[in-house]
């Protein structure tokens, strides 16, 4: 795809969005009430991620027991069918370097976010399954884990919300890239804590001109805040529903 089509002179992108618009985000918490302690499903555009949190539970083996805080494990499961142009059964190895690296970064992000000292001698297991990929994979995973942790009731300092942002023609920042745009543009993924401007994670795998960084950061931060609001709305909505159903039960 040529660069012209990525961002038209009229300021429209491949899927008809403007430069600062995110795709339709829908999320749900408590999707797996039986199988785990906290769960979430997040869908942004065609990217679909499902997260299940188990814990705090007693560690399965002694090596994952810490005396002063909880031990955090993140399992990332990206099945072959999730890929954008999956044609045949080509399996991404579970131990591929990319996934291992991503798991380590996710543990690092959430280690600082969860108040681990409240849960000494326990383990918190986060299982994430990617159902469909269409760009902004890492940020969707972070958002989904954040929601699942909130659902599980594990104490956290604040939401963490993430978004990615690319740069077109070394000039125009473009928010929330889809798969086609990710192929062509240099982009970074950023994760912001709450409504602050504290960056807890930043991933840049391509080259970006340094003078564009400030612009990109500014738009990413406001994008993250927008996503945080959307997630917060959903959490409040489902909490209200749950309180309502509990009240109804107690009346009956």
């Amino acid at each position, binding site marked *: 795809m040529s660069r012209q089509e990525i961002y038209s002179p009229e300021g429209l992108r491949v899927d008809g969005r403007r430069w600062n618009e995110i795709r339709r985000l829908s999320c749900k918490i408590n999707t*797996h009430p039986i*199988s785990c302690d906290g769960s979430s499903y997040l869908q942004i555009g*065609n990217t679909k991620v499902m997260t299940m949190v188990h814990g705090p539970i007693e560690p399965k083996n002694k090596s994952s027991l810490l005396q002063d805080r909880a031990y955090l494990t993140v399992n990332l499961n990206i099945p072959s069918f999730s890929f954008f142009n*999956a044609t*045949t059964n080509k*399996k991404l190895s579970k131990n591929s370097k990319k996934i291992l690296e991503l798991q380590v970064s996710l543990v690092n992000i959430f280690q600082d976010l969860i108040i681990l000292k409240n849960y000494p001698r326990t383990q918190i297991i986060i299982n994430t399954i990617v159902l*469909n990929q269409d760009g902004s994979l890492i940020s969707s995973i972070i958002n989904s884990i954040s929601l699942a942790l909130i659902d599980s009731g594990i104490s956290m300092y604040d939401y963490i919300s993430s978004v990615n942002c690319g740069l077109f023609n070394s000039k125009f920042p473009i928010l929330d890239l889809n798969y086609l745009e990710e192929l062509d543009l240099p982009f970074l993924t950023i994760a912001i804590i709450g409504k602050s401007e504290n960056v807890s994670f930043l991933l840049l795998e391509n080259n970006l001109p340094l003078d564009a960084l400030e612009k990109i950061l500014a738009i990413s931060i406001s994008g993250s805040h927008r996503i945080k609001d959307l997630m917060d709305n959903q959490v409040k909505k489902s909490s209200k529903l749950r309180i309502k159903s509990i009240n109804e039960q107690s009346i009956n």
Partner: protein
Amino acid sequence: MILSPAERSYLRDSLSLETPIRPDSRLVGQFRPIEAVCNFLPNFNGSSRVRLSDGNECITSVKSSVVIISSSSRDDSVNLIDFLFNIPGYRDDSNLVSNLTLTFNKIFNNNFDYSSLKLKNFKNHFFKLSIDILFISNSSDINDNYVPLTLISFSSYLALRSTRLPLLINDLEKDEEDLNIDKIKTQKEVELPMFSDDWSDSTYLFPTSPSSSTANANQRTPPLIFILAVIDDNLFVDPTIEEQYVSDNGLIVPWCSGNIINPIESTKLSRDPNSDSTSSSTVGLNYNHLTKGISLVKEVAAKVASALDNVVNTSDENEFLNSIF
């Protein structure tokens, strides 16, 4: 899960009665409720997700690709359906995964009508279906013996049922000119298949007749696999994990388009974690078990199939929501 001796004998006794009582008060041929959706993955020809009330769930996707099989090499070694299992916590070369892959590949490839996968007017071009199955279990209960085969089979049935194949466009005009058959044939050898871009033109791999009733036994369906637990003289469909632990033996009965198909296999469901493997109490099957099992499956399978077909038919309407929740 470990059952105490008292629990074991209570369960066993109530299940081996002449009119057996199952712990969840189900009938012998009754299934647990499932929650099912299909066609929610936009990048695939067909997809489905089936969830059981105990939290186990199975997500299946079907992707088609065109392969060329020269007529000389077309024999049993060519499989047009390829299963790939993905069970978190299990390696790809583990017993569980390889057993499942083998069972499904065998049953589906033996009983699949390959002519429906053949590209019309092409000699050696076929659709190859890659079926990916992701099984998510909430507990550590699954092991080599306890496999929720029924759930996986439901899910793959639904996924195949919802599978749509794109419309071939380069043979449309040539259908009319049947005169120079030889000439067309030679053209077709070199020609590449072209498909319509419009997804609404696509056709179902398993076309549903408008009056899809259980009586219509001639309708082609994907295979369904039923697992039966054998306890004394009784057989049970869709056994829970507790029922499997007290069972004598297990029976895998595949079914397709109204008929029982081969291979019917026996499998050991009860690996009691308390006892070691040497003191295993597996009892063999007798003739009665087989006939009983086959008639039981025949009785329930058509109902199951029509219930699953309903899921496919209803989820077409909200296809564009594309969400599983």
